[in-house]
């Protein structure tokens, strides 16, 4: 078997994507891949770079993984630069003196920030915004600065401005042109964006050409402009566009574009058929694509061509974009400026709502050529589909801006009308057909679609569209999108929550007689028991509730495979005194229980027979323990590190916060079990990002994460908010948990709940932080009411002789279950394998 040597120059997002795609090829082992990067690490997510300032660590930003590269025999060279390509001999040389031969060479060298040639631009606090190291430098500079200026009001410049603002600097944006985001927006859109950004406290200076950077009087530097005005600042970040890294190509005689960039054909080949160029360093049809999605498409085309498939050409890319800059929603589609001959424009500027929309329509009035959206991007998905697929516009087209008064029909694009080949998710090139196929193969909710096709897992801008395709396909298949709880209730869980909450229903039998049929079952009974408990929090073993409880709740312990139970006392925050440890040890010895430390910083005692549970708990409660709710779909444990009390690195007292949180929410019943953690610094020793609710300390306050979990499909929690004080943190957790209890499906973890939520984390923020639905006060009240009725279920049980009667194997005999037989292993008991 012959091997081909591939050398990939550059290991940014696109270079890494090329390697990833290559490894997915059926004949991957025929290729020996080498990659060289001048950065100190492999590829990371540059799109999310600014999240580095809001608490994301380098580790979280990483896309490539050194171990995975090693497993796949990929030779990677860090901190080194390819300086020469010897085309006749097919070799590359690096500055450190390495030489590598290649059969095919892939240039994925990316681009560098353009720094305008201003006198004085090379001073210590004049920085750029491209790599992690740049960001570290910006942070270091910001620590000793008060004022910061970003030169360049484009997409990346505004992102940099947001970073400076978050670092606490008085922030300015200096733009050479007469508007912000001149490439993506027209003047009207740019003007509104400027107003909105200024309202957030960022000062915008347009039509300013910097001539000189000199020493300031009030601040470190003074920027002198061509119109004789000046601005003083302590630091400057240049973000005035990017330039392709094409020296290597020039140095070996490959053709470059008029304004730089390595010229490529549809297969991403340069002038030399054995050398490909992909990503921001390449120029295709006189265009440079400064976005990641087209770079990924180029990577795919190059991989296909190297593997002999000429059908996957790169044929250009849609540069439409939808994003949030400094919290302002911005969308730009196609020919936003109306440059097409004969184009007609419609625009709508809503000063009251602070939104701006513009449509660019073909001369015949039937096709959408472009659009600009500022302040509200709800229509983005529909407009983008109209544009990409060249679909006919509704007539008259202006109804897309302002709905016709006498027209009740919605003016959105029927997803039916969108062709199969239409790209729905441009981040991962997922077409409508791909989603339909996934549905046909059994994916029937958003979470399943996301995990099988990756659609909507990039920027998330397409989530509403993906959901439309999904629902449409399910309807077509005759799958009634039926979310009834079970055969006994023709209501979804969320509807039952509303009924129980608003009608103040306190028992299952009341609910069943008014809203259900039959006797109920093991699906609706525990679900209703959980809702009743979430809202009214009555003792779950009360006569009217006891028959509803699922396996573990019914006896306040965890059923194991042989019919015995395990016991988990609560150890808030994982903190326990030696005396209490001795109590647990004593109980475990006395009842001969198998003892194991759990993942949630608690101790689990196994092998208790049903009749032993009260005796075990009598001792535990007597020693000051409470039930740990390990048996419930409830708030269980809050893991923590030792924070400022002991740790050299801690920035907040994470243990006290964990104990406070655990004490507040202990036993709260919810659609699924809830686990939390608090870390005292960004080293994240408590692994908070793998929890439903994660809290991480920073010097500026707490960062709150939502929707993480381990389990079958691990998910990292999403960053919800940063720099919170104790009070705000708790009120946000109150609201999130109660909103989850109100709206989630039965047994739906917070991760899936969040993934299925239309609008995702942004929507959750709008509900919890901006009170979009006006329910925050109610949510907090409901929480206070629920946790106000907390009781240790074991203490209550022990006080009731009538309740204790159930904790016997036989009601009419004192014998125990003869089936509970144990062997020993490593000095402890283990259920014997029974011959039946």
């Amino acid at each position, binding site marked *: 078997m012959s091997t081909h040597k591939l050398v990939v120059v550059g290991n940014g997002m696109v270079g890494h994507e090329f390697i990833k795609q290559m490894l997915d090829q059926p004949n991957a082992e025929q290729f020996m891949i080498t990659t060289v990067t001048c950065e100190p690490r492999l590829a990371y997510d540059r799109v999310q770079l600014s999240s580095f300032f809001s608490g994301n660590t380098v580790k979280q930003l990483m896309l490539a993984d050194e171990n995975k590269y090693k497993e796949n025999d990929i030779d990677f060279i860090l901190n080194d630069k390819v300086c020469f390509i010897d085309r006749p001999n097919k070799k590359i040389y690096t500055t450190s003196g390495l030489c590598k031969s290649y059969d095919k060479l892939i240039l994925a060298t990316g681009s560098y920030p353009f720094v305008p040639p201003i006198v004085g631009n090379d001073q210590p606090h004049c920085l750029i915004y491209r790599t992690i190291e740049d960001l570290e430098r910006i942070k270091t500079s910001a620590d000793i600065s008060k004022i910061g200026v970003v030169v360049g009001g484009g997409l990346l410049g505004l992102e940099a401005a947001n970073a400076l603002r978050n670092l606490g600097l008085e922030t300015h944006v200096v733009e050479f042109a007469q508007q912000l985001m001149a490439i993506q927006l027209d003047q009207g859109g740019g003007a509104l964006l400027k107003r909105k950004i200024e309202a957030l406290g960022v000062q915008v200076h347009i039509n300013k050409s910097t001539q000189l950077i000199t020493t300031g009087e009030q601040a470190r530097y003074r920027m002198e402009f061509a119109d004789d005005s000046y601005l003083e600042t302590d630091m400057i970040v240049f973000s005035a566009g990017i330039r392709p890294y094409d020296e290597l190509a020039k140095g070996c005689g490959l053709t470059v574009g008029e304004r730089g960039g390595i010229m490529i054909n549809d297969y991403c080949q340069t002038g030399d058929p054995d050398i490909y160029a992909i990503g921001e360093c390449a120029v295709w049809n006189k265009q440079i694509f400064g976005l990641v999605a087209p770079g990924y498409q180029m990577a795919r085309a190059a991989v296909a061509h190297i593997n002999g498939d000429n059908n996957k050409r790169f044929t250009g890319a849609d540069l439409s974009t939808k994003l949030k800059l400094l919290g302002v929603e911005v969308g730009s589609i196609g020919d936003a400026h109306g440059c097409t001959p004969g184009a007609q424009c419609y625009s709508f500027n809503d000063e009251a709502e602070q939104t701006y929309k513009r449509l660019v329509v073909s001369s015949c009035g039937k096709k959408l050529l472009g659009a600009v959206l500022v302040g509200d991007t709800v229509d983005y998905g529909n407009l983008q589909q109209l544009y990409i697929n060249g679909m006919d516009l509704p007539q008259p087209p202006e109804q897309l801006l302002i709905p016709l008064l006498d027209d009740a029909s919605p003016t959105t694009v029927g997803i039916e009308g969108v062709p199969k080949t239409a790209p729905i998710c441009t981040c991962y090139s997922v077409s409508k057909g791909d989603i339909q196929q996934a549905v046909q193969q059994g994916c029937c909710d958003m979470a399943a679609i996301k995990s099988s096709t990756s659609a909507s897992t990039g920027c998330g801008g397409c989530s509403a569209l993906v959901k439309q395709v999904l629902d449409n396909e399910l309807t077509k298949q005759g799958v009634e999108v039926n979310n009834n709880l079970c055969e006994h209730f023709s209501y979804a869980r969320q509807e039952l929550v509303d009924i129980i909450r608003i009608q103040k229903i306190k028992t299952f039998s009341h609910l069943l007689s008014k809203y259900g049929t*039959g006797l*109920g079952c*093991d699906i609706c009974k*525990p679900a209703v028991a959980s809702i009743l408990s979430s809202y009214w929090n009555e003792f779950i073993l009360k006569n009217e509730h006891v*028959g509803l409880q699922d396996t573990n709740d*019914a006896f306040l312990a965890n059923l194991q*495979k*042989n*019919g015995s139970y395990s016991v988990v006392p609560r150890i808030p925050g994982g903190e326990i005194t030696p005396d209490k440890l001795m109590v647990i040890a004593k109980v475990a010895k006395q009842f001969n229980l198998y003892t194991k430390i759990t993942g949630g910083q608690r101790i689990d005692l196994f092998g208790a027979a049903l009749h032993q549970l009260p005796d075990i708990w009598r001792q535990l409660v007597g020693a000051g323990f409470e039930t740990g709710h390990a048996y419930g779909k409830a708030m269980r444990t809050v893991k923590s590190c030792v924070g400022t009390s002991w740790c050299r690195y801690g920035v907040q007292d994470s243990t006290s916060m964990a104990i406070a949180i655990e004490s507040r929410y202990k036993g709260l019943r919810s659609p699924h079990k809830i686990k939390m953690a608090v870390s005292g610094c960004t080293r994240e020793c408590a692994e908070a990002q793998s929890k439903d609710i994660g809290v991480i300390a920073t010097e500026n306050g707490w960062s709150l994460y939502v929707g993480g979990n381990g389990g079958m499909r691990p998910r990292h929690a999403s960053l919800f908010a940063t720099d919170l004080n104790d009070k705000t943190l708790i009120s946000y957790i109150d609201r999130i948990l109660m909103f989850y209890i109100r709206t989630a499906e039965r047994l739906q973890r917070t991760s899936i709940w969040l993934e299925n939520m239309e609008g995702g984390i942004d929507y959750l923020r709008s509900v919890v932080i901006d009170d979009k639905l006006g329910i925050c006060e109610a949510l907090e009240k409901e929480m206070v009411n629920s946790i106000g009725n907390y009781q240790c279920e074991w203490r209550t049980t022990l006080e009731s002789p009538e309740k204790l009667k159930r904790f016997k*194997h036989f009601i009419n005999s004192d014998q125990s279950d003869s089936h509970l037989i144990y062997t020993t292993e490593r000095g402890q008991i283990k259920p014997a394998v029974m011959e039946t």
Partner: protein
Amino acid sequence: MNLEQTTHLIELKVASILLEDDQQAWEKVCDLSDIPPDSGICIFYQNQQIALFNISVVNKVYAVSNYDPIGKANVMSRGIIGSVGESLVVASPLFKHHFNLITGECIEEPGVYLKTYDVRTTKNKVEIRENNK
């Protein structure tokens, strides 16, 4: 036909199969008040473990073997009771298999049965006996 009527019909069928001159004597196993409504308990009867369920809607007690033949443990009395279609069922707490309380048959795995017992209640007294099914 509602659940009550169907249950009654099935019971008539089951009863007609029973031998009239059954030699088995009834044996008192517990008080009716020992069984929480719509929930179960386990009793010891002639060296066997039996799960009793008190179904309030039909005001009757049902008895089946306490041993889950699929999960292989004595836990049936701790299951949740309810209905699937027109059948009265108990769901095993181990893997949630549903067993018909009258016939003992498993819904998910037809052919797998729990042994059933005859039950009668007089005032507060619960009596059972083996049946010949």
